[in-house]
């Protein structure tokens, strides 16, 4: 190969600067957010609408779940109305492995910020995050294996059913044949906070424990951001992988995909498992951030809220889902309340927080009717939604 050809090839493969300048810019802005947030919060007019770091953490966690849900709904085209089950599974995993819930056993490994003699299981939150992801993945497979054979709308109903059963199970799980698994409606609290312990603090300067640190909010924020970046990275890489292309093929035409030799069940189950994985991590991290897991947090509306993020942003488009997630997350955490109080001051008596799910419902309907590809739609999905697809179900039996 001569030099000229080599240069051409490198040029072809090198990313066009326009494709990465925007993400890099956003990441840089996001990383330095803690250093300038207070300045812009003091600015007139818009200052009231700027979310603080605590709110940002919640927004990022929900965006992370939306990106996970996007793997199932956006890539593979399987409507999951019970994603809240994965959130709950992750949160309770953190509650079991990093709190005093199981007082009968005392086991410590890498936990920080608590007395080493405290009863209960206390693992390092970093390990808990991974275990929660894996556990949720197993839950996802367990839900998926019997149900993924079903056609799209039946699948939606079954996932909805699981999304309803799991919170009720959690609520009633304080007396399972005499064993207190979930502590019922009270939930499990407190949950240990993340941290790196004394050794790593001395040698590398990483914080000992988040909760006891002075810049607690900032630490949680940066960690949440890193987790989101990890999720986004995995999500983008998955989309471009062999598995990701198989998902998109199934979404577009199940029959043709099967004819091309894509194993339907296995591919769909993977989408479930991987979507669940990120939901579990997000749930566990959020539980640790809030220092508690409460059954009242896991209701059906959360699943719809996450779905709304995906639809608003654009099914299948990672960047779209991030935008949708941050916008709706902001509205949910404090945006609607802020707008409400501004309206109140202007003399209009309307509480947007009361009607938040009506607002999300309206967003869903309006988007589906007028812009089904979402704000930042994926080009490939656009054709599918606008021209229609061959949507006949694959004959049952052959897909097993």
């Amino acid at each position, binding site marked *: 190969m001569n030099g000229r050809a080599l240069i051409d090839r490198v040029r072809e493969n090198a990313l066009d600067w326009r494709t990465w300048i925007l993400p890099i810019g956003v990441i840089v802005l996001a990383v330095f957010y803690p250093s300038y947030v207070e300045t812009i919060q003091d600015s007139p007019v818009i200052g009231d609408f700027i979310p603080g770091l605590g709110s940002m953490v919640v927004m990022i966690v929900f965006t992370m779940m939306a990106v996970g849900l996007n793997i199932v709904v956006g890539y593979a*085209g399987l*409507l999951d*109305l019970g994603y809240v089950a994965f959130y709950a599974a992750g949160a309770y995993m953190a509650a079991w492995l990093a709190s005093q819930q199981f007082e009968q056993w005392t086991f410590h490994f890498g936990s920080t910020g608590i007395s080493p003699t405290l009863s209960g299981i206390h693992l390092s939150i970093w390990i808990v995050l991974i275990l929660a992801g894996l556990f949720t993945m197993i839950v996802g497979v367990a839900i998926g294996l*019997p*149900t993924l*054979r*079903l*056609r*799209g*709308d*039946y699948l*939606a*109903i*079954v996932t*909805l*059913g*699981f999304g*309803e*059963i799991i919170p*009720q*199970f959690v*609520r*009633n799980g304080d007396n399972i044949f005499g064993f207190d698994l979930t502590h019922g409606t009270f939930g499990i609290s407190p949950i240990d906070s993340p941290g790196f312990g004394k050794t790593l603090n001395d040698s590398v300067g990483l914080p000992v424990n988040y909760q006891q640190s002075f810049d607690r909010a900032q630490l949680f924020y940066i960690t949440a951001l890193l987790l989101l970046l990890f999720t986004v990275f995995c999500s983008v890489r998955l989309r471009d992988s062999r598995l990701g292309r198989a998902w998109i093929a199934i979404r577009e035409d199940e029959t043709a995909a099967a004819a091309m030799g894509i194993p339907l069940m296995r591919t769909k189950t993977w989408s479930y498992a991987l979507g669940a994985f990120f939901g579990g991590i997000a749930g566990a991290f959020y539980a640790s951030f809030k220092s508690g897991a409460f059954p009242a947090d896991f209701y*059906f509306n959360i699943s*719809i809220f996450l*779905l*709304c993020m995906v*639809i608003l942003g654009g099914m299948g488009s990672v960047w779209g889902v991030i935008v949708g997630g941050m916008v709706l997350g902001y509205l949910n955490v404090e945006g609607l309340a802020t707008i409400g109080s501004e309206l109140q001051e202007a003399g209009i008596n309307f509480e947007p927080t*009361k*009607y938040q*799910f*009506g*607002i*999300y*419902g*309206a*967003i*869903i*309907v309006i988007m*589906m*009717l007028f812009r*089904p590809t979402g704000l930042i739609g994926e080009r490939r999905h656009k054709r*599918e*939604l606008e021209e*229609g*697809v061959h*949507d006949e*179900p694959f*004959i*049952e*039996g052959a897909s097993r």
Partner: protein
Amino acid sequence: VSALGLALVALIVVWLVVNLFKTPTLFGNVFFIGLATGAVYGLVALGYTLVYGILQLINFAHGDVFALSGLVASSFIISAIGLDTDDSVLVVIGGIFLTLIVVMALFSLVNVTIELVAYRRLRHAPRLAALITAVGMSFIVQNVGLGIYDVDFRSVPAFIPRTEAFSIGDVSLAWNKLVVILITIPVLALLTWFVTSTRQGKAMRAVAQDRDASAMMGINVNRTISVTFALAGALAGAAGILYLLQFNMRYDTGFELGLIAFTAAVLGGIGNLSGAVLGALLIGFIQAFNEGLTWYTPGSDWTRTIVFGILISILVFRPEGLLGERTPEGG
């Protein structure tokens, strides 16, 4: 799988029989509660089944239309005609009849409007799009109820006495439960007659079978679908009133009840009218027995888990339902 299913059914039968012998009076009373609840579920389930049969769409908003209709009926009964406990029997009967007609007419209109606004444009879009829209619509209707009636529970005065209408031994059936059954039966008869014997009903079944072919035969598909939604809305309206006569309700009552009714429709075989009623009665009994009986009962804490457990097992093991036929689309 079938052996396991039979074993489970046998276990339930044993459980019921033991309960029957231990507490016969309670069993009888609970049975009637189940019957009355099942009748309401049946009317709602029919709405799901009708719409699913013709559009293959799970109309999530249906449960919320039901709840809204009940709330509107409560204002109509209290404010517009002002029924009260000391009214004579004839006035009460006339009042309920009037409410039924007004609310059923109003909510057929509401349901037709929902179809027109939200679902018609998406008829050729991927099915997921319509389903997602239905979920969104459900929240909109629910919030309309929230906007008008706030978060308070609404009920009507007990102008139908809760005293017993008749009794067999110690088991008694209260008037307000009897009325529910007395209204449900003619409504069901009317619906069956409409679907099987009228021109429009036949057109509905034709469109459900093959939309394109029926269009070629000169059936006005759009109108037929509108009629279906109107019927479903009317049934939801009737169910709303009947529910209101027994319980109190608020804006979000329809969400869970809608899911239960949908489960009933799936249990009976979605798209199948008698299946929906059968499934609804079964679910009504299961719920009543679970919440009312005493010997080894999980109790009301677990009702939802049981109902959705049934839904999931039916979908996984027998997606065509109890009375449905196995079709390639049914899977």
